[in-house]
């Protein structure tokens, strides 16, 4: 299928499946539907980004950028004031971030939320940090055991085979660590530790046997399988410039992995530049018939129709669409008979850690830029392991590296010796940085702003989200604990930090919740298969569906939930229940 056939604009055809969004979840939904023979339309609000061809900054050395990879001050001020807070935002990636001017949102007085946007074909799958971890049963049980949030309607066993399914296709590098709190994936070979890390791993193993240090599991092809090669993907070259796009297809993205598979079936159409305003609901049949779309560029309106609709528009994107889909039966948002739509917004809390110096290793170095770090999984993964003054836990992540001219540019020195010092690798340092769970709280919610709209006339999202006492206490403990661990392991000049007061929720870019799953239709939006309780042919399979944030990075679970939901939906359609 060539590209002319892939992209559509106007059509009156009724598709078998509509997938709204083309990021990690949308890409998987489209692939799975297409491979089951379903004629599928993927609706994407942003522009087309073609694999390889549109990675316009890839491979460009720093001196070839107009501003050496820094972004024009005025441009930031006018268009990227929010987006520039993301670590990956720079001159080589800015075209994959949403323009703040086009995507306004408001926040409740006294609160703030950093909403990072990637509204183009591929969505945040182009920009993600690629860390890939399975949830464990400790994660699925947490809400039930300590009473925060509602009980997940699924357990590890429900997702296990689906994790395997997505991992084999996506390609996840990692080590078989056999940890109860962090189930193994289907692994490609792990990235290596450097020498100081390997030594620290051994020290932690004897000092803290319950806090093993492993290599971060990441969606990179360390050794591509036949399946990966057949997708047109090759081995990771350790450039660690992933967010510019990767022509090697060495990290998982929609473009590198799910889209080619979906397109190959001949069953896929994509409607780019199609901003979904709302879902079209038929009260007589209690089914969603399709979507109302506003053209990204021309603001013209059009509609698309299908038998089943999958919302994969990102956590807040999907919820915004649902809130804006009002009818007589659902005056407060479609499939919102429970009234919890928009509530229980979570992110991760990444705001504490400690760093210090390592002595020695002057003859040790590394080669290449490893796109992952060392990782100490959550060691407070069940109530008996909780600290006395707060609930749940956190992981610690960090890497050892030698300081370089970037780190030394503020140090004193003028002349030949200073220049010489800058050209040499300096001392080693190592840090541990917390990645904590955020409790689900009813008060943390999004709603439609009563009067403000965006340029498409769609009501803006109003966000009211704050850290709670639990996150504050957790970060204080994490800072203390990280410092203690480093000092005991022999790291020198250890300094700890907390930064909750500096960074609002959102910046971990792990926003989840707001259309949660649950057993009880009275207090949840989705059932155990990500199907709305209220409307049989409407599914939400992205982060909006989460009941708890857990500690691990969420994307792999978006994938597994999505493919499982497609499998279920297809069975339901065949059984004529949808």
């Amino acid at each position, binding site marked *: 299928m060539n590209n002319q056939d892939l992209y559509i604009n106007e059509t009156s055809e009724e598709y078998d499946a509509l997938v709204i969004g083309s990021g990690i979840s949308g890409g998987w939904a489209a692939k799975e539907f297409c491979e089951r023979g379903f004629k599928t339309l993927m609706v994407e609000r942003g522009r087309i980004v073609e694999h390889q061809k549109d990675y316009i900054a890839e491979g460009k*050395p*720093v001196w070839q950028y107009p501003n050496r990879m820094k972004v024009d001050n005025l441009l930031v001020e006018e268009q990227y004031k929010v987006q520039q807070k993301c670590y990956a935002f720079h001159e080589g990636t800015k075209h994959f971030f949403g323009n703040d001017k086009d995507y306004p949102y408001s926040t409740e007085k006294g609160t703030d939320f950093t909403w990072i946007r990637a509204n183009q074909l591929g969505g945040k799958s182009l920009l993600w940090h690629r860390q890939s971890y399975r949830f464990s049963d400790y994660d699925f049980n947490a809400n039930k055991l300590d009473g925060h949030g509602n009980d997940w309607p699924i357990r590890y066993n429900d997702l296990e085979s689906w994790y395997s399914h997505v991992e084999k296709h996506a390609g996840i590098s990692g080590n078989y660590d056999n940890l109860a709190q962090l189930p193994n994936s289907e692994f490609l070979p792990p990235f290596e530790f*450097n020498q100081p890390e390997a030594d620290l791993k051994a020290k932690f193993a004897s000092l803290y046997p319950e806090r093993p240090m492993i290599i971060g599991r990441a969606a990179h092809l360390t050794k591509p399988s036949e399946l990966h090669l057949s997708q*047109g993907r090759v081995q990771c070259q350790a450039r660690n410039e992933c967010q510019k796009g990767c022509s090697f297809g060495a990290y998982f993205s929609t473009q590198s992995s799910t889209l080619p598979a979906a397109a190959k079936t001949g069953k896929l159409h994509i409607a780019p530049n199609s901003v979904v305003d709302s879902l079209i609901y038929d009260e007589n049949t209690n089914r969603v018939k399709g979507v109302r779309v506003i053209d990204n560029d021309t603001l013209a309106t059009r509609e698309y129709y299908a038998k089943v609709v999958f919302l994969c528009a990102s956590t807040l994107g999907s919820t915004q669409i649902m809130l804006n889909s009002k009818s007589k039966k659902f005056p407060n948002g479609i499939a919102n008979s429970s009234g919890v739509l928009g509530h229980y917004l979570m992110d991760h809390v990444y705001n504490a850690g400690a760093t210090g110096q390592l002595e020695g290793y002057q003859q*040790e170095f590394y080669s290449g830029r490893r796109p992952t770090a060392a990782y100490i999984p959550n060691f407070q993964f069940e109530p008996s392991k909780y600290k006395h003054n707060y609930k749940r836990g956190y992981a610690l992540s960090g890497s050892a590296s030698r300081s370089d001219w970037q780190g030394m540019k503020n140090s004193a020195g003028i002349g030949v010796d200073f220049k010489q010092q800058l050209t040499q690798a300096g001392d080693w340092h190592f840090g541990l940085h917390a990645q904590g769970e955020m409790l689900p709280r009813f008060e943390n919610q999004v709603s439609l702003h009563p009067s403000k709209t965006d340029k498409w006339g769609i009501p803006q999202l109003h966000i009211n989200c704050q850290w709670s006492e639990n996150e504050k206490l957790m970060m204080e403990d994490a800072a203390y604990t990280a410092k203690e661990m480093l000092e005991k392991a022999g790291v020198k000049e250890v300094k700890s930090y907390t930064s909750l007061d500096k960074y609002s929720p959102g910046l971990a870019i792990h926003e989840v919740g707001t259309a949660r799953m649950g057993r009880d239709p009275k207090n949840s939006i989705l059932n155990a298969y990500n199907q709305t309780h209220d409307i049989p042919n409407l599914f939400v399979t992205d982060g909006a569906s989460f009941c708890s944030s857990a500690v691990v990075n969420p994307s792999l679970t978006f994938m597994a939930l999505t493919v499982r939901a497609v499998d279920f939906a297809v069975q339901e359609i065949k059984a004529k229940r949808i």
Partner: protein
Amino acid sequence: MSNEQEIKEHKNGITTALPQQSRRQLLRSIATFIGSTALAQLASGNALAVALAYEAKADSAQKAGRLFTLQQMTLLADVCAAVLPKTDTPSGAELDVHGFIDHQLIVCYSDDKQKQAVQIVETIDRQSYHNYAKSFHQLNIEHQTELLIALEEQRLGFSSKDELQFKALKSLLVFGYFTTEVGATKALSYQAIPGGFKGSVPYDSVGKSYGSLAYY
């Protein structure tokens, strides 16, 4: 056929044009021979257009910049030569780091930061007259170096505020130097496409810090 066309063909070949079997073979061979020309070309295929990048000029010190006056540009060039002098690699002034600083301050820095940069340049000249009865440009490099060391140590009339302002300017100077092609690839070790990650290599086999970074 131009180089650019060749590379486009190559990329197209990998994605679409070749029949299935040979495409698979090509991919396999690419995966086997890491760091081959094919890979390098594939991954730098979009790097050909040097759109509006700051280009080093030979005469930045001889004319007013966008932020700095002619006199200030001359002084800034001297500072670049003193902080990072010529060794087996060129000096900061030879790589037109002063021209880059002028460009970068205007484009990427706030008005306040720009003012502070101008201020410290003026302060350096003032303290030069005060201590040596000569402009900074008229000093020999030994005295220039001496004065800048005094600035960092807050001696010879320099305040802590001066020291902070200079730190910001010097930081941009160092950034400007090591993000030039010569700075990144000659003064440092540059791995455009590392070909994979090795956790332990002898330092002497690299011998320098890396100029190729994931984030700048």
